[in-house]
């Protein structure tokens, strides 16, 4: 198992996340995509931490931050999605285009 194996997995995860962010119509789908990308980033951090950096603490701290951030983000995003749904009776991104023009 070398560094590139981990990076490839992370890349695949990131690509999947990006893909779902760009193509999912439902807001929850988008949120899941964002979580995938965050996790891909976390894997990268841990991988670099393991193979490149001497002091293993740095990457782990950042990953812990990312996890905390992802939890907070999910909480806020879900509440936004909920209130958007209440207001528009829809959670479809294409319907939520009030900021256009």
């Amino acid at each position: 198992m070398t560094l590139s194996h981990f990076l490839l997995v992370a890349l695949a995860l990131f690509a999947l996340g990006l893909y779902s962010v760009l193509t999912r119509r439902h807001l929850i789908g988008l949120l899941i995509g964002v979580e995938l990308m965050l996790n891909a980033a976390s894997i990268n951090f841990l991988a670099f931490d393991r193979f490149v950096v001497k002091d293993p603490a740095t990457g782990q701290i950042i990953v812990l931050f990312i996890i905390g951030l992802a939890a907070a983000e999910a909480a806020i995003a879900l509440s936004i999605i909920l209130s958007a749904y209440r207001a528009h009776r829809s959670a479809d991104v294409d319907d939520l285009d009030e900021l256009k023009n």
Partner: protein
Amino acid sequence: MSSGTLALLCTHAPLVGCFGALVVLRRAPRAAAALNILAMLASLGAALAIFAGSNHQPPTIISLWLSSEGVPISFGFLLDGTNQLMGIIVALIALCIQVYSLGYMKGDPGYARYFGLHGLFAWAMLSFVYSANLLQAFVFWELVGLASFLLIGFWFEKPSAAAAAKKAFVMTRIGDVGMFIGLILLLSSTSTLDIAQLMQASTLASIPDARLTLIALLLFCGVVGKSAQFPLHTWLPDAMEGPTPVSALLHSATMVAAGVFLYARFHPLFVAAEGVSNIVLVIAIITAILAATIAMVQRDMKRVLAYSSISQLAFMLLGLGAGSLYAGVFHLTTHAFFKALLFLCAGAYIHQIGSNDMVTMGRQGAAKLRLVSAGLVIGAAALAGLPPLAGFFSKESILAALHGAHANAFVYGAYLASFLTAYYTFRMVFLVLRPSDKSVLPAEEHEPHPHGDVTGSMKLPIAILTVGAAAAGFAGDFIAKLIGAKALHPTYGEMAPAIGIALAGVIVAFFEFGRKDAAQQGFITRVGALDTLFERKYYLDEIYDKVAGGLVSLIASVSAVVERGVLDGTGDLAGNLTIATGDATARMQSGRLQLYIGSAVLLIVVFCYFVGGY
């Protein structure tokens, strides 16, 4: 009182009257009139008191008016003989006319305003006369123009009066612009505008010849405008739209006389300027004949007198242009009396009969007004230059001055003009006093003022001026001494042709209009084309209107189009382009979240590619 204080009193008393009438006493017209007449009396008294003092004084400086770097202008009075003489004439005539107006304007709703404007006028004119320097003179010269604008347009509800006032202001303004530039050139050449100092030979000699000629010509522009000389004369006949006493005021000693007076004041300059006197003579002779021919065919009494004013002013300029200060000033003096008299007589007829038309006046029994008719005959004889009345002496001295050194053409021109003067003057007299039933009555148009009987307050000024018109001619030597010029005493041999010519004019007029069963048709009517040409005033009004008016209007229209189309258009275009750009870029904000994210990712990739070098 010192002469400075007297001059201040003389010039500014009417201003008090003006302010009182226009602001304080608007609702008390009789009090306003009384105040103004009192003020005018004070002016006249002060003018006489100044005259009683010495007549060779240095200019009295009251205060420094304006001081900028190149322009030290003081406010002061020059009280030499010429100014003393003019001041008395102005104050006297203005007073006579104000007294006359008491009766003439009775019942007019603008009574107080009328007297207030009279006060304004008298203030401006007297201050102009006594001015110690050219700029001060110019200030009051403009104010005289302003006051005449307001007086001509006194009956502002009449469209023709409003138009006439505008025309008077604009035409004189054209001349004034020339004069103003001349004034600035004079200032920059000599760095003084003090009249007494300017007229010293040493000052004049210090100006280069070409410059001096230019300055003289530019100043003459002002004279042409103010004194209604060809080609700027067309405003004066229209100025008849004002009340008749106003015409009397404007035409005798004031407004139009201001131009000639300025010329007289600057006589040394005009003499020193090479080639200018010939131009002056040419313009004067053209004006004299042109105006006299038009006067021959007018039926409106005031218009005849208006054209006669133009023609007589040209005579004064002939005298001055020929180099004789005496002749010009003398004629200015005598003309002031008899022209004021003639206008007041015309006003009396208009007041009584209610028409400006001479034929109508005759039919309605104008001759029954005995005193007025006597005044008319004496004034007319003075105007025609019959001995021994005022106009005779002054006109003879002008002709004598012309005889001196100038081409015969001018002399013959002047003879022609005097013949025409005698002719049209007595045509007027006979039409008014010896009516015949042969001529046709015109369609009616008259002044919008309440008519009534000629009152005593109207008769008194007429009587005074009649005496003046009869006697002023004998004051020649006195005037010469006062203004310090050489009097001209033509011999009987020199006078004979002029007397003969004037008599010939009277006789022709008598034959055509005065004798029993006269046809009351002028000889000029036999030549239809000329008759129409004179009747239509050489079409000058039309030509000016079409050519100059049209040109200005065209340029103005082009400018307005440029403003709307090009300048505003460019501004609007810039604004609209900005808005259009905004609209176009706003379209990129589709509100599609995923589109934003996609383009962001794409941009990051592109950015990394270029920055990272991959």
